[in-house]
């Protein structure tokens, strides 16, 4: 490891420690809830969202084997992103 990489890891570790200290000891700290939500988001993504995307991709390959597949996939990437960001409005409504 070069000095640059070492420095990045060292600085990063310091910031992680700073963040953790604030999340545990700071005012309004809710460490358990934050930890559950942090690990939960990763598990939800890796266990559900990513496999669903992969399965969707495989399915699309079966349905649309040739031309038109790339354009459909690109459109789905854009539409899916807009849908994800709209979830609060769809589930909760506007402020």
């Amino acid at each position, binding site marked *: 490891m070069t000095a640059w990489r070492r420095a990045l890891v060292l600085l990063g570790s310091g910031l*992680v420690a700073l963040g953790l200290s604030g999340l545990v000891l700071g005012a309004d700290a809710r460490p358990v809830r934050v930890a559950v939500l942090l690990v939960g988001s990763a598990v939800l993504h890796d266990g559900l969202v*990513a496999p669903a995307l992969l399965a969707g991709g495989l399915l699309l390959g079966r349905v649309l084997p040739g031309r038109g597949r790339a354009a459909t996939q*690109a459109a789905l990437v854009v539409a899916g992103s807009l849908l994800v960001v709209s979830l609060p*409005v769809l589930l909760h409504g506007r402020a």
Partner: protein
Amino acid sequence: MVRRPRSDLTRRPLPAPPESLRRGPFRPGAFRSRLHDRAVTARLGLWLGVVFTVCLLTGLWSHLLQHPPSWFTAPASPTWLYRGTQGVHVLAGLAAVPLLLAKLFSVYPHLFSWPPVRDLRHAAERGSLLLLVGGSLLQLGTGVMNVFQWYAFGFFFPSVHYWSAWLVYGALLIHVGVKLPQIVEGLRTARASRDAPGLSRRGFLTATGAASTAVVVAAAGQTVRSLEPVSFLAPRRPYRGPQGLAVNRTARRAGTEVVVDYRLEVVGPTGTLLLTLEQLQAMPQRTARLPITCVEGWSADATWTGVPLRDVVSLVGAGPERVVRVESLERHGRYRTSVVGRAHARHPDTLLALRLDGQPLAPDHGWPLRLIAPNRPGVLQTKWVHRVVVL
């Protein structure tokens, strides 16, 4: 015999799990999409790194304005500065959502690398990745929810968002440090791949970029008025509300709907003064066009008329270089009071406003009197002001 310079416990191989467990996604070649590729990952990572840096810097700026340390005085000009930085903060965070999902998609097979843990150093790196991935998802997820004022996550958002930002950015720096050779190699690898039907690497990157752009355009109307017609995502129509201006905290929620026998109490070096609304209206009035800028990213211009704060505090013997605390009639709430720093206190456009667009303030805009100052977060533009204290 190979001589090792020193035994490094963190590099000592850990026993691998039995090969019979290497099934499903752990099998070699389980993932075949060409999008799981370093050339894609490195580029998405670079874009995401830039966007996260923008979010961190604009976020720290917002934090500094809301919690100024003793060495810092928030500047009162340019008027539009906070509106710009906070608009960029929210839009960059929204733009990061497609980038993050695409990035995680491109590296997904690494989740099932074999053996899962090679040595202690590898274990530490994977642990930091959990913080990076979970922290990023949490940061963006709760951030987007907060933009829509959906507080279902059960913690005080500003505090957790602030500390998580350090955590995530630290984990990001560790990640870059560990992966630097792979990043460089990935960026040097060509994007092109046209061997099979379906989205190419270049196409995937373009689609992700387009998705980020679409999300930004769909939300930007809350900051950029000309984009309002296409802004179906903007949580707020900034120019809809009482007197054509949006409101976050209503008088009903603040418990300030009914105000009887109003007096403004002004406390300063030479004593305490009580001013009626008529007396305030009789003082020289000043009109300024200033934005309300919410931390959630929306902002709206309006024309405010009232008495400059510095004129009011001069009545109790305070010079222009004084720090002032402004207190609301609300009994509860974190933002019941706010502190006006030196630069704002001496600025002529820092008003105790009586009128909005020429009309008396609506109760939701802070009737009878509110603070409005240039370049200041909305939560610090205290409404229903009844007390001004020179500190």
